[in-house]
């Protein structure tokens, strides 16, 4: 049965190869090939899942060894796959959501002449992501890790003729590279510590290693996670990543890739368990990010950017949970899965809205769309309820558990983290309600709109290919797009309940991640109650600001905080000033140094000899008598020297 793991990856990889090498002749069928292969991989996933369920909990780990990749001295890296409950969960999420989004893209990218390549990239992403979660050692994981980075680079920059897209893609890759640095250093540390970097040896020997080493490894892994999962301080790329086509944002930058960081941390749980300092760092990063993202999310008028902020914040929750150790691992993954459903749904909804609105992304130009695109409205609305944690929907279960766990951490830490989580919940409720209201309620601001203000965010120029820039005629999207949305909506409604009833998910995952009940200072009900209160407050404020009074079509200046949030709390400006400008100056000065100093020394020596030569040749003045003088002098010297030699 484990022989089915490789095909799991191979299918989308094959798709990518065929679609990218195949060339124009595949243009007509390309997207169907892509969808087919990703679905195939999903089917493999289901078969394997069934197989795992058939086994009892202890034997639910399949490994498949293909070949030895690198072997030098003690350095041994195999191409081996490991399928256990954790990776299984991801496989299903990735291939499932992935296939849905493939389907959606068939409609969404219909008018793009480079659709074939788009699907090639999507397949490439699936393959890399699957490799990431199925790898049995960190180096192989690293391959997938950078592979998804590449795929996201290609997809963010898919509309390369847009400089903003190209820049965003580059930025995403670079920031991720910083994270990757962390991962590679972590691997080196593992090698020096354990003489190996395969999951088995490393995770089973954490007990024997010094805590210092483990903390170092943990922190490096955290750095990697920050890069991939857009956690503070490496979060800056996610907002710009929205330059990519919306399905990409849904799949890569909401459902799957950005959650890889969480996977890494949970997977390396053994390391973190043995390195409390590293764990603390993780929780802090998580808490900070969940607030950061939420705040940013509140201020964005670009619907995708707002959702991006929320993604950041939700992943913050997961990281926080993962940082809590065995208390939180399971819930981190659980939230990850539910989030995969509803956030993907939300993005697809947003895409559908834009699809109907000439790719308008400025929510201030939406309003009252519910009657024009009912399906989108309903699915989006369900996703909305799910994410804010409306009782009964999936977000409610998963997020609530995390908040509990945060308190269960105990001590002041517990209170702080829990408080942050609660606050986050409130803000989430606020900005999501804001999005909801601005998009589907209120008066129709897109009617007889003035010429768009230049600074207003303009998105997908596929518009050029796809119809005119006249007043939009909102309309529902075709089936091929709505069906995935519906499916995801269903998931986001029932997922949480399904997982939590009887702790299904807990029992499923526990063998891998381990689990322990913290001693919460608050009872579960208390936490839930608090969460509910926060939720209501958030919604209320949002309704007060955007539901009751009309939304101005041009963004008001807003409070200092708002403006800060619009500018991502100045994080980009900081990067720009410190890193970009500084880097430019550094390189420019180095170029100068290389040319004048290093090269100058060489040319200088040459010039020096030239000058010396010029001086010396003047002695050759053409007068025989001066030649005679030199001879005479020479003879004198010769004699003198000889005598001197004898004298001394």
């Amino acid at each position: 049965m484990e022989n089915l793991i490789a095909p799991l990856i191979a299918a989308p990889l094959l798709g990518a190869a065929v679609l990218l090498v195949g060339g124009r002749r595949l243009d007509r069928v390309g997207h169907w090939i892509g969808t087919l292969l990703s679905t195939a991989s999903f089917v493999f996933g289901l078969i394997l899942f069934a197989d795992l369920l058939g086994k009892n909990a202890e034997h639910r780990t399949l490994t498949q060894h293909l070949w030895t990749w690198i072997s030098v001295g003690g350095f041994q890296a195999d191409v081996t796959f490991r399928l256990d409950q954790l990776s299984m969960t991801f496989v299903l999420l990735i291939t499932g959501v992935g296939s849905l989004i493939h389907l959606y893209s068939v409609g969404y990218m219909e008018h793009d002449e480079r659709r074939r390549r788009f699907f090639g990239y999507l397949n490439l992403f699936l393959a890399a992501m699957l490799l990431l979660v199925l790898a049995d050692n960190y180096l192989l994981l690293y391959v997938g890790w950078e592979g998804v980075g590449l795929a996201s680079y290609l997809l963010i920059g898919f509309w390369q003729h847009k400089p903003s897209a190209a820049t965003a893609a580059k930025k995403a890759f670079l920031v991720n590279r910083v994270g990757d640095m962390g991962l590679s250093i972590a691997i080196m540390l593992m090698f020096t510590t354990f003489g190996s970097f395969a999951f088995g040896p490393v995770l089973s020997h954490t007990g024997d290693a010094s805590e210092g080493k483990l903390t170092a490894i943990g922190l490096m892994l955290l750095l990697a996670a920050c890069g991939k999962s857009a956690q503070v301080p490496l979060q800056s790329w996610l907002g710009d990543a929205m330059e990519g086509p919306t399905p990409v944002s849904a799949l890569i930058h909401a459902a799957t890739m950005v959650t890889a960081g969480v996977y890494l941390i949970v997977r390396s749980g053994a390391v973190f368990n043995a390195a409390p300092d590293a764990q603390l760092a993780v929780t802090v990063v998580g808490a900070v990010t969940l607030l950061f993202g939420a705040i940013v999310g509140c201020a964005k008028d670009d619907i995708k950017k707002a959702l991006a902020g929320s993604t950041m914040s939700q992943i913050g929750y997961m990281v926080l949970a993962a940082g809590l150790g065995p208390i939180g691992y399971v819930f981190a993954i659980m939230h990850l899965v539910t989030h995969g459903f509803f956030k993907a749904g939300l993005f697809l909804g947003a895409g559908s809205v834009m699809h109907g609105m000439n790719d308008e992304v400025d929510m201030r130009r939406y309003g009252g769309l519910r009657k024009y695109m009912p399906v989108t409205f309903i699915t989006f609305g369900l996703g909305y309820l799910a994410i804010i944690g409306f009782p009964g929907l999936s977000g409610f279960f998963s997020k609530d558990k995390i908040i509990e766990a945060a308190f269960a951490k105990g001590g002041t830490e517990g209170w702080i983290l829990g408080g942050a989580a609660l606050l986050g919940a409130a803000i989430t409720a606020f900005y999501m309600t804001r999005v909801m209201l601005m998009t589907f309620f209120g008066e129709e601001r897109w009617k007889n709109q003035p010429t768009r203000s230049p600074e207003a965010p303009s998105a997908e120029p596929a518009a050029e290919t796809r119809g005119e820039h006249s007043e939009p005629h909102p309309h529902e999207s075709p089936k091929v797009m709505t069906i995935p949305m519906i499916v995801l909506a269903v998931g986001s409604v029932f997922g949480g309940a399904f997982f939590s009833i009887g702790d299904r998910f807990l029992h499923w995952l526990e063998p891998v991640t381990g689990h322990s009940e913290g001693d919460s200072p608050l009872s579960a009900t208390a936490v839930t109650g608090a969460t509910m209160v926060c939720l209501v407050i958030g919604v209320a404020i949002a309704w007060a600001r955007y539901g009751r009074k009309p939304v101005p079509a041009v963004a008001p200046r807003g409070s200092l905080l708002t403006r800060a949030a619009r500018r991502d709390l100045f994080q980009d400006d900081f990067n720009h000033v410190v890193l970009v400008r500084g880097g430019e100056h550094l390189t420019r000065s180095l170029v100068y140094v290389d040319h004048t100093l290093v090269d100058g020394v060489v040319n200088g020596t040459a010039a020096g000899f030239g000058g010396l030569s010029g001086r010396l040749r003047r002695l050759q003045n053409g007068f025989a008598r001066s030649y005679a003088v030199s001879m005479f002098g020479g003879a004198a010297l010769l004699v003198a020297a000889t005598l001197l030699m004898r004298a001394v």
Partner: protein
Amino acid sequence: MSAPAVHSLWTTAAEPISKIDAPKIEYGQLSPTLIVVGAALIGVLIEAFVPRKSRYYAQVFVSVVALCAAFAAVVALAADGYGTTKAHIAAMGAIAVDGPALFLQGTIVLAGLVGLFTFAERRLDPVAHGSRVDSFAAQAASVPGSDSEKAAVKAGFTTTEVFPLLLFAISGMLIFPAANDLLTLFVALEVFSLPLYLLCALARRKRLMSQEAAVKYFLLGAFASAFTLFGIALLYGYAGSVSYARIAQVVDGTVTDVDPALANTMGNDALLLIGGAMLVMGLLFKVGAVPFHMWTPDVYQGAPTPVTGFMAAATKVAAFGALLRLLYVVLPGLRWDWRPVMWAVAIITMLGGAIVAITQTDIKRLLAYSSIAHAGFILAGVIATSKDGVSSVLFYLAGYSFVTIGAFAVVTLVRDPGGEATHLSKWAGLGRRSPLVAAVFAVFLLAFAGIPLTSGFAGKFAVFKAAADGGAVPLVVIGVISSAIAAFFYIRVIVLMFFSEPKPEGPTVAVPSPLTMLAIGMGVAVTLVLGVAPQYFLDLANQAGVFVR
């Protein structure tokens, strides 16, 4: 009369008339020299009696035959073992017949032969009034630009005297490294210098420069030989004899019969040191070592290019040969005195030659300075004072002389209306015009620069190796540095020839007669053979590495 004094060819006349015994001369072993001298005399007779028309051919014929015969003789002697086992001192102590002597004589004769080819070249200069002319003045006596000169040119005169002069010079050079007493040394020095002075003055074009070169060369040369002679006098005063062996004995203090009468002067080290220094100075002048080098650029530039080539090659060989013999046979006991001094000379010669060459703009001057630098490299080998040193120098000289003649032969090919186009700017883009000539010249330059797979590298390696073995590591390092500097200007010429666009009014490359082709061809052949498979010649040099005492 004290018996020991009576040992030398020159003093037999002092014997009482009654029992005169003819000096014993091993003609066979001196045959190379004698053949050349004889040919030279025949050449004089030809000048006297053969009608002008056929003189050229007669001269060339005689010279070629003579030189070939001389070389054959050298080879025969060597094969006969005179280079090794039978090595001894001939002509009553006047001339040594031993390895170095034969090796150098062979080199000189061959160099002379190749030089002769370039002398005899008559295709390069445009035909003057229906008669082919070589690169020598129509009539040396006539004033440049005067009617007499025009008349001479019109009459199609050529200075066929150059051939006997060449032969005389060669004969002198043959004796020079073989000379085994100071008088012979001096006579040989003059015998090959005087013809060269004259040859320098005989250029067909740019006669002013030619004459100036001759004057400078002559005056400075005479000046130098005066020093040499005084040095000889002092050494004679020191040792009471001019025979190398005798002086060496006195220097070593191994002399058996000290005549009390001489005690006051004999063994007076001041005499020895000053004399030795002056003598060495005379030789250093000939090899063109700094600071006695200043004549080289001017003379090389002014002299007719074939003469320059011959001079640059053969003179160096002969002079270094003599220097070796002097330092290894006469003054080895003085090693600790002259070595440091020679170190200094070698260093400033290497660096000076290389550095000044960088900014040269005339190809002949450039080659002159490069020859100075090479003199420095060879000196490094001379200083090694070991058998290796000797053989390495011999090898270097053999390789170097052919490269030099070849290079100057190429220079004669590049011409413009004013004669040879020696200014470097004129050489721009030569590689585009006539890739073959440029390539050949490039090969010579690379050999000069000591790039592997050329004789230059093998020689340089041999010399430096000997020097390093002799403990002169700093000398090697400086040698390496100066060869790096030298590489710079050789490369400059290559860049000029290949990488710069040819000038529209650039020079033309004359198609030479087989003679010059032969000269150049031999140059290339020797360069590559000595570069790729030097072993055989290294063996030769090794066997030839021992001086007879």
